[in-house]
């Protein structure tokens, strides 16, 4: 009968040590996340009631501070407009990079700048729009659409990079199959590549939307702060991050509690977006 040497004691100890180490590191990484969620729910849920979502902030020093209706609508409207700007352009850039530019010099330069844009702090985008559109008084001073432009600048590199990854996942055999049928490249792109990549493109875009929804800095000097709900894009518009920013810096507990409630609302909105992104991803045929 053949015998093989048993696992040595040293290997067993090393194995156990490394496994424990990785488990501890994982827990350390999760703890802050859980704490954030815990405090958000503990402090924020108390602020939630029907009035909280259906009334505007009053701005009165005494008495009822009001809810966050204007902030919720402002965030939805401005992020929607930013998405309308950033997603088509971003997917278009990614299509160019993957289907046409490939490894060319221009494509490489574009890719490099997109990477640089990804690393630009959001406050810089806010300042940029402030200087270019607000200080110069293009169509008034502070305006919701300027906030959207700042948000779209923030979203653009995220959309480009995620779309590029997804488009690269589309197998070349599909492109070849379509080209070999005598399809012009634009038809291959629109009829074969885009539909195959669609779930992934949606996922990447939704994650960019979620990121934009939580940004304060790009809106601070562009859309500014206002109490009332309104849908005029040329006027100032409230948003959840700015509402939180303002309320937290107040000395009244009621306002700080409203900030917690607004923060919880924002997290729930982003969570819903992420869940939708996951559901779409699950239906993907590529992942």
């Amino acid at each position: 009968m053949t015998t093989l040497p048993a696992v040595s004691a040293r290997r067993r100890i090393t194995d156990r040590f490394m496994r424990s180490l990785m488990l501890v590191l994982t827990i350390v990484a999760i703890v802050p996340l859980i704490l954030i969620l815990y405090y958000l729910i503990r402090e924020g849920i108390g602020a939630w009631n029907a009035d909280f979502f259906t009334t505007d902030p009053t701005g009165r020093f005494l008495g009822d501070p009001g809810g966050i209706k204007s902030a919720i609508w402002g965030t939805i409207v401005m992020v929607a407009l930013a998405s309308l700007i950033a997603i088509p352009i971003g997917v278009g850039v990614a299509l160019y990079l993957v289907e046409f530019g490939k490894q060319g010099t221009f494509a490489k330069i574009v890719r490099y700048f997109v990477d640089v844009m990804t690393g630009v702090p959001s406050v810089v985008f806010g300042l940029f729009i402030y200087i270019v559109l607000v200080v110069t008084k293009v169509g008034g001073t502070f305006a919701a659409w300027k906030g959207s432009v700042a948000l779209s600048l923030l979203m653009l590199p995220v959309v480009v990079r995620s779309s590029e990854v997804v488009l690269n996942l589309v197998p070349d055999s599909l492109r070849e199959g379509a080209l070999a049928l005598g399809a012009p490249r634009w038809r291959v792109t629109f009829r074969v590549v885009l539909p195959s990549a669609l779930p992934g493109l949606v996922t990447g875009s939704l994650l960019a939307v979620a990121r934009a929804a939580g940004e304060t800095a790009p809106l601070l000097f562009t859309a500014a702060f206002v109490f009332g709900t309104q849908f005029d894009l040329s006027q100032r518009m409230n948003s959840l991050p700015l509402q939180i920013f303002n309320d937290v810096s107040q000395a009244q507990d009621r306002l700080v509690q409203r900030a917690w409630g607004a923060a919880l609302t924002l997290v729930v909105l982003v969570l819903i977006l992420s869940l939708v992104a996951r559901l779409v991803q699950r239906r993907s045929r590529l992942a």
Partner: protein
Amino acid sequence: MNPEDVTSPPSAPSSAAPDPATPRAETRRLEVGGARDEEAPIVQGHAVTLRGLNAYYGETHAVKDVNLDYAANRVTAMIGPSGCGKSTLVRCINRMHEEIPGARATGEVNLDDLDLYSDGVDVVSVRRAVGMVFQKPNPFPTMSIYDNVAAGLRLSGTRGVNVKERVESSLKGAGLWEEVKDRMGQPGIGLSGGQQQRLCIARTIAVEPEVILMDEPASALDPISTLKIEELILELKRRYTIVLVTHNMQQAARVADTTAFMLNGELVEHASTEKIFSNPDDERTEQYVTGKFG
């Protein structure tokens, strides 16, 4: 080119150059009454001739000065060890080779007497005239069985064709109709590997090309699916000129009329399949077909 040429009487097969941009010239040859030649062409195919064909990947010289004649309505097998350039050569015929970054080809590929590499020839038209079936079945994953076959027509922008009829006739031509006629709306990737490959063949013949290139069409399939593909090839050659790349020498012996042996990018020998496998002129061919290398 005079349009009269392509509709000339069936007794005289047209030798006029088919313009890849125009619909397929349906030059039908009437079968002589009583003749039971099962291999007689139903549609006169078109010959392909390679003259001084060279192909490169960057600095790598993959196909070296090949001259080769593919006869109309015949199956020509390309055999040779891996990396000998047979796939590259075939991909030069429908100009798919140039899709690979850094790849280029020189020389002539003539479809009858039209050089597919000459100026003014639209590469998209070339690929409509020269269809291709790939090694790995590649149905479009987002499309149903019906849409996969119709994709050939829709992607190439063909107009004035009854798509439904063409899909049915193409699926029948690929021997898949009976298996899928009740589930045309289901995804094409739900079929088995062999069915997927026949779906891809249906997709290719839906465009009605002049020539069909098959790059190891059965190498990813089981023996029964392979047999079906081989029977299909014998049926298809009555309408098309077929170039078949294969690693399987039995397959070449079973379906090919002529066989070409390639080695290190060069064409060593091209002769009738019988001669290649029994009495080749070149010693290297004999060594390869008898399994001494490769």
